[in-house]
């Protein structure tokens, strides 16, 4: 029904035009193929695939996930097939789907980021790169790239140098002032920022007296973190002039509207895909109806439209 409605949902991320602002978040949508039985993939704004590293990674031992109040903790440990197999195996399916694909990349050193970006350059079907800077920097004693503005800028510049597609830098919320990092990566050439990645959290089983996940600490996602995500998107949207992609606890088109009002140009749906695999497509349908019902000329009218008291 909603699919027969006409509404202008188009938004731009750098030079890339998306047919709507609804993307899927890295690590929550597999390599997209997993969702084919449930979603018309071509109706989404874009999909972001699971984080890809230079070499394949087996990831952390089990248990890797646990549910928390209105959220979940994960410590997957970045299990992935590595950039080579990703290009050879996973991109084949993705090339056939008529949807822009962002490849989420991560590394232990600036050089690794650079090499991955180089390998992905000019691979057909890749619409953009999302740089995950929440990973610990092995050389710098495990401090995350995402917490030090200078490091974040260096990673951004390195990837940018090797890329012909828009580069989105994905920010960590586990910082005192996220706008500082956002400005640093903007200055280093990022075409957009996406936020937030997971909040670092922990869960304990009092009966066994053990951590609920083997990695002890993990990333908190889901509706629980939405207020923090919304606040950071609002702050960053005011601090930078590149597009902001909002992430964190988004489930419905109403949530999408909230993030866009706070200043997001596009959004990513994460954990909600697990609960409702159709969440992303339903959000597109909801936005379509909203634009029609509210008689907006474009969804872009909503961006940053928050009315302050």
């Amino acid at each position, binding site marked *: 029904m909603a699919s027969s409605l006409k509404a202008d949902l188009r938004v731009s991320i750098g030079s890339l035009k998306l047919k709507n602002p609804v993307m899927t978040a890295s690590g929550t949508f*597999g390599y997209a193929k997993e969702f084919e039985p449930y979603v018309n993939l071509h109706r989404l704004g874009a999909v972001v695939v699971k984080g890809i590293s230079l070499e394949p990674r087996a990831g952390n031992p089990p248990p890797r996930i646990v*549910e928390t109040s209105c959220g979940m903790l994960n410590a997957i440990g970045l299990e992935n097939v590595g950039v080579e197999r990703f290009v050879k195996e996973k991109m084949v399916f993705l090339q056939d789907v008529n949807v822009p694909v962002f490849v989420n990349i991560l590394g232990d050193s600036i050089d690794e980021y650079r090499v991955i970006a180089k390998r992905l350059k000019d691979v057909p079907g890749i619409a953009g790169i999302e740089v995950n800077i929440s990973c610990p920097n092995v050389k710098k004693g495990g401090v995350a790239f995402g917490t030090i503005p200078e490091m974040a800028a260096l990673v951004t510049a390195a990837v940018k140098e090797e890329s012909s597609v828009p580069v989105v830098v994905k920010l960590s919320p586990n910082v005192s002032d996220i706008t500082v990092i956002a400005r640093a990566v903007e200055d280093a050439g990022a075409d957009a920022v996406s936020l937030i990645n997971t909040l670092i959290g922990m869960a304990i089983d009092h009966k066994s007296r053990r951590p609920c996940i083997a990695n002890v600490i993990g990333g908190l996602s889901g509706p629980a973190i939405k207020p923090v995500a919304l606040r950071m998107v609002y702050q960053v949207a005011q601090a930078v002039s590149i597009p902001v992609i909002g992430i964190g606890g988004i489930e419905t088109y109403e949530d999408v509207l909230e993030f866009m009002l706070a200043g997001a140009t596009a959004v990513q749906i994460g954990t909600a895909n697990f609960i409702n695999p159709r969440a992303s497509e339903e959000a597109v349908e909801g936005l379509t109806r909203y634009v029609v019902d509210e008689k907006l000329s474009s969804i872009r009218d909503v961006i940053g439209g928050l009315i302050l008291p």
Partner: protein
Amino acid sequence: MSQFQEKTEITRIERLTPDVFRITLESSEIASRARPGQFVMVRTGDGKDPLLRRPFSISQTSSGKYFQILFKVIGRGTSMLAHCREGEYLSILGPLGSGFTFDCKADNCLVGGGMGIAPLLFLGKSMLRNCTLKPPTIVLGARNKEELAPLIKDFKELGLSVYPATDDGSLGTHGLVTDILKGLDLAPTCKMSVCGPTPMMTAVHLFCKKKEISCQVSMETAMACGMGACLGCIVPLAKGGYAHACSDGPVFDAKELLWQVR
């Protein structure tokens, strides 16, 4: 293979013991395609607490239109399910995962413990339909008679005979399912299909390994998505690395898994 996200109607809720329930759901999409050992992800309520779906084995299908899940109330999600009413709708994803495989020419032995008995009913029924010559040998264990008797009933109604074992001896053998297995004269070509608590599956695996009997097990892990997307549901492999219980399993050849033997 196709999966569906469906709003399915609850056509029946039965309380088998104080904390074990059986729900019959209507979905020809799911019921007509399900294979024994597959599972569904159930949304237990509309709210955000609990947030994630819960996995349950398909314990039976009928008329290509209905399927059942059998579950024990252990936390908030199962307690919410137990409070559903007939006529209400549940959001279901499925059928998911690989199923059990079976070979009608081999002797088949099904071993279940506790709620792990659920998928074995579906498997037993399929064997009965397809392998007319040799009905499977069925060994089921639980804590006590109260828990085990209503689960055995289903098998009996199909005409299958069951070797029961209970921890307290209140029904059948006083002891573990492996105590029964030891007493059975199993052919080396026998194929074991097992579902139950990990210690039980470990014991059966070790038993089979010693006897060089082929053994497939259905693994339970925490699951967020049930469809291979979150990578949360891993089981360690003997060769190193991990498999995903939801998409590579939940049924695995026991030999391929890494068992923690204490």
